[in-house]
Structures are given as C-alpha cells and as structure tokens.
C-alpha cells in the first residue's frame, strides 16, 4: 500500500500553495499551509521510526508546545524567526527520518516542541478576525493530531514491511525535497 501513502502529499495543494493564505476556521488551517501539513505528517512518521515511548511522547510534545505557541500568537507578542523555523522544521524532520538515528527521547521531544511552538505561533497570529477562539483552537488541535496519527500509522505500516526501514528513509528524502521546494516557492 505504500504507493497509496505517497498520495498524501497531494493534499498539500488543497489551497493555492500559499503558506498561510487561509481565512476560515481552525480546522483547515494546518491543512492549507503545505509547510504545516508536511511537518505534522513528518512528526508522526518520525515518531514511528523512533518507536517505544516516542510513539506518543513526540507528537504530544508537538501538540502541547503548539498550544502554547498559539496562545502567544493570539496575544500579539512578536516571536522572531517563527516562519523560518516552520520552513526549516519540515526539512529537519525529513533529515531526521532520512538518517534514521536513535535520537534520545528528550532531544527528539524538545526539537518537536520547538517546531510545534513555531507552528502554533503562526496559527495563533493568523487567527481570523471575528473567529471564535475556542472553536478555532480546537480545530487546529484536532486537525494537527489527525495528521500526526496519520503519519504515525503510515510510518508503522511502512516499517512492518521487510524493506520498510529503507522506504521510510527514502520518504524522509522526499520530505526534504518538498521542504526545499516550499522554501524556494515561498522564498
């Protein structure tokens, strides 16, 4: 089924490929920013690759830090370099998947938390005017968690195959390529 998993990036073009050009409710925000979506699926896939407690700890760190980042973004505080961190997150997560090293859990969780904070900041800062904050925040969290689980399950399914480890590393290279593509197109 791996070719089916390869279709997932198509959803990146659910909007006109602008990074944060969405003005609707929170549910759609992580989906219409290709950089967000790529990173969130990659977090799930990386967690699958790390295995053990990382399966839940890494995505949880991302979601918790994203909530905090969202609150900071909504408060109007400025956070320098948030956008470059978001763009770098997809490339670095792809690189982590591609090199397939056993990172210590605290390091992996801290890195994803940093990325999560930056993504959350962007979601919070781009809260559409007259939006219900609670619904918007719930939407962002539900969609983000959905994408993490999707990446996690896809990663575990890929790893269940005898050649799965190499295939997952290859998909990490794909994430890097897409990340660079976004960097250039948004650049």
């Amino acid at each position, binding site marked *: 089924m791996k070719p089916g998993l390869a*279709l997932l990036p198509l959803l990146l*073009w659910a909007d*006109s490929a602008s990074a944060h050009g969405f003005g609707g409710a929170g549910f759609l925000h992580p989906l219409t920013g290709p950089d967000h979506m790529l990173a969130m699926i990659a977090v799930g896939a990386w967690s699958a690759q790390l295995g053990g407690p990382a399966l839940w700890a890494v995505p949880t760190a991302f979601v918790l830090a994203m909530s905090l980042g969202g609150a900071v973004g909504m408060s109007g505080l400025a956070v320098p370099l948030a956008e470059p961190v978001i763009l770098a997150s997809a490339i670095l997560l792809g690189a982590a998947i591609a090199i397939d090293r056993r990172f210590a859990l605290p390091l992996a969780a801290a890195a994803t938390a940093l990325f999560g904070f930056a993504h959350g900041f962007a979601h919070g800062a781009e809260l559409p005017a007259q939006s219900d904050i609670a619904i918007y925040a719930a*939407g962002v969290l539900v969609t983000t968690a959905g994408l993490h689980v999707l990446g996690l399950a896809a990663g575990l399914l890929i790893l*269940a195959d005898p050649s799965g480890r190499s295939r997952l590393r290859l998909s990490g290279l794909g994430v890097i390529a897409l990340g660079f593509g976004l960097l250039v197109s948004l650049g």
Partner: protein
Amino acid sequence: MSARTTTILTILTIAFTGFAAALILVGTPAAILLLALTTLALAGWLWTGDTKAPTGLMAPYLTVPPLFLAMGSAQFAGGWVTHLQADYAAWFDPDFAFTGANWFVLLVCIPASLVLFGGYLLARNQPAGFFMAWWTALFAVASGVIQIAGAGLWQAQPLALLASGFGLALIFAGLAIVQRLLRPRAASVPVPAPFSTQRRLLWAVLFAAAMVVYGATLFTQAGPLPVIIVVGSMVGGMLGWLLTTSRRPVDPTWAVPLLLLLLTLFYLHVGEETLTDFNGMIATITGKPWADDDFLLLIGLLGPIVWVFAAWSLWHRQALGNFIFWFLIVGMILGEPTHLLIFPIRLMAINGGGYEYASGMYSALFPMIPAIVALLRILSDHRAARLA
C-alpha cells in the same frame, strides 16, 4: 453480425457524435484532436486485435485516471482556466465560457469517465475494452504533451511544474499501455497472506485519522450536512471492511470492473452536480456559503484522485483499495438517495412550493446499481469463506 463489427460500428457512431459535440461545445482544435485520437486508436486496435492477456494491461491502465485527475487538480489550483482564456482563447469556440465548471465537465469529467468506462470494458475482456486501451494510451500521451507544451506562458510556476510532472507521468503511463498492447503478457497479482490483527488495526487507525482530516476540511467548507453523509459513509465503510475484506482482500477480477463502473457513473453524477450548482444548493440548506472553486477542487478533483486510485489499489489487493471500495459502496447506497429524499424535502421546507429538482438528482441513483451488486457479492464470498 460479429462482435468486432458491432464494436466498430459503435465506435464510429460515438466518434462522430463526439466530434460534432466537441466542435460545437469546445472548438475546432479539440474536435480535430478527438477525431485524430479516435482514428489512431481504431487503427491500433484493428492492427493488434484483442490481445489475449488483458490482465497485463490493467495495472498501467489504472494509473491513468488518478494521474489525469492529479494533473487537473494542479492545473485548476494554479489558475489553468484563466491561463487558457488569456493565452489560448483562439483554440476554443468563441462562445466557449471559460468557467471552472465548463472546463471541468467538458475537459476533465467526460474524458475521465470515458477512461473509467473503458477500464470496465477492458477488465471484462470486451473487444471495445481493447480499443479503449489504445484510446486511453493516446489520450494520456496527448494530455501530458498539451500540459507540458501549454504551461510555457503559465504564471503559477510551482503548480505548473507539478502539473507538468503529472503530465510526464501520464506520457509514461500511455507508453507503457502501448508497450503492453504490442507485446501482450498475462500478469497475475500475487495473493497476499491474510493481514495480521496488528496490521488491520494500524490500517483502521490510519483510515480513522484520514476521516477526521477529510471530515474537518469538508466541515469547514460545507457545514455539517455533507460531513454527516460523507464521513458517515466512511465510518460505515470501515465497519464493513473490518468485518469482511480487511483480513482477506476481494478478488480483483470481479471487483475492479464493478468499481470502475461505479466510478464512471459516480463521476458523471459529480459532473451533473457541478453544472447544477450543488454547492449553492448545500449553502441554501445549511446557510453556510460554499465557494465554487472550493467545491470543484475538493469534490470534483482532489477527492476523486483517491477514489479512482482505489481501482489500482484494489487490483493489487491492497487494504486501501478494499477500504475505499467499501466506503464507495456504502456511500452510493446510503448517501446518494439524499438527492431524491433529503435535499428536495429540505428545499421545500426552506423555499416553500412542491417537490422540485435538487442538484445531482437525475444521476444520483445509477451508481447504486454496481454498489448493490458488489455488496451482495462481498457478503456472499465472505459467507462462503467462513463456511469453507
């Protein structure tokens, strides 16, 4: 009269009718291209005849519909229709309206439906199926070349590049079909070992996550009513899949033709919805605006990429294809009657007046026919496997 003569007469009749329709609705170049493709395909089919090994053709054939829709999605999202109007208006009839709906119905929905129906005929080993294999191969190559050649002046560069990538893949797919037509060989898909419980669970988790994400997108764009219908069908499909084909995939030799017929009828139904402002009707019912472009991209293009990819996946006995097969069966049986029951009645309640046309009504029930046949076959096979 032989089947071959009947097939030739049918092809010629449809070809000339299609030529006239394309001449009137799209323009002279499109009509000439259609006639040229059909003539070449007919010549190819008469030259090679009906190959004795249609199974070897199915895998490359089934890559064409998802690639074509993926290319169409990238084109549409990148403003292809505006690009055509700005730079290629002379290629179209002066009365051709450059709207997303018009482009989608005439240049995406109808050709894609033809390709899907051709796949049905091919999978059933019909003579017209081998003609359609030639036609689809040439159509794939022509579509890819048009995209790559026509993207030169297109300004939305990243999406133009993406669409051209799909165009290139279409050219390869078309050439692969031609190669198989010239050197036929049988190809059997290996029967996989029954899926373990852990793997089935992982697939179920993946499908559930995809449902949440897709449902969230649909909810944001269209409100709760379409979500109840679509995600409800997905949940029903997942239960059906878990209880039957999740352990042992269906036999693709009977399932793929039925799925392709279902997809043909369903995609024509999406065409009717597009022409008759389905999103406007839903907006009237839910009170939530649903933009034309959002509807076309999600319901007409992106969603169907996954639905038509399911045919390829089902052919390879994969879990994804088997799940989507179930989802489409449930969706057609439970979801489509809403066009005749729920929507008109809701419109009566909102607008007053009597029972009137609701968008998509005329073509809604037809996909139910292959869906019901497939449901009965799956249940019967499952019962037989349990007793064995």
